């Protein structure tokens, strides 16, 4: 279990560093399209190396790439929009905005697979648009102050 916590802390640092690097890329005037391409290019190289060293097979039933490629394209659109959007906002609030999208697969699971909603999930899903609205209001106020 202690080892589990150790890996969780490493995962936490990995995800946090990713957020900081997104902002750093913008601050250092890196352009969104090259950053997105290189993020996916390097990630693909790292996954292929992991598969190679784990001596795992690269082949999979046709449905696997058939599913993965369109969903990967969707995620790539997200990163491109996020990297372009950071130029107009703070990382503190932008990172939250993109992470709040966890609600979408939850809603899709409820609609497609008829998963039970439950009180906790219902409250959590209601909080997402409220949180987004508050972030938008904060940004609008900040823009008004700057004008």
């Amino acid at each position: 279990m202690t080892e589990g916590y150790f890996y969780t802390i490493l995962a936490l640092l990995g995800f946090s560093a990713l957020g900081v690097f997104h902002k750093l890329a913008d601050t250092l005037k890196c352009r969104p399209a090259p950053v997105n391409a290189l993020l996916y290019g390097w990630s693909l190289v790292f996954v292929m190396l992991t598969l190679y060293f784990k001596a795992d097979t690269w082949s999979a039933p046709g449905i696997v790439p058939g599913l993965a490629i369109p969903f990967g394209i969707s995620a790539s659109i997200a990163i491109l929009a996020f990297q372009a959007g950071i130029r107009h906002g703070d990382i503190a609030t932008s990172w939250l905005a993109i992470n709040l999208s966890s609600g979408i697969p939850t809603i899709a699971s409820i609609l497609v697979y008829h998963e039970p909603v439950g009180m906790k999930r219902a409250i959590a899903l209601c909080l997402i648009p409220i949180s987004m609205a508050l972030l938008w209001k904060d940004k609008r106020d900040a823009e008004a102050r700057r004008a």
Partner: protein
Amino acid sequence: MRRHGVLEARTDRNTAVWMRLMLVAFVANGVGPFGLKVLTMQGLGAYQSQYLMYWYLGGLIFALAALRLNKTGVNGREILLGAAMGGCSLAGQSFTAMALAKGLPGHIAFPLTTGGSLFLVALAGIALFKERIGPFGLCGVILGVASLVMLSIS
């Protein structure tokens, strides 16, 4: 006078553009991981690594098309940051999987990684990039973190 951060923040900001792009990122990023759920429901959970490889390949195909449309090349700084970001993305996902494999329950691992990373990134934004969050933004962050933690444990 605006106080500049350790790393100077850019000033060409537009809330309407930010909101539009964040909404696109919100929807597209939310749809992205749902494929893994479909994969598992199809009884193909054993192919998660191969799925991830094709998932990144799909992302790369779109990214290269966008790069070609933009008619831009890449520079050394972008190559280094891209590598760092790709490594961090994979490390985050791999270490979460390893934590779960070592028996740490998901209701502990997911809120810690999601809520914790939101907190650390917000902290970095304030401390390193000298960002300011107003009272509405602060309430939004608190409600957002609460929502994600609740989603992780539900």
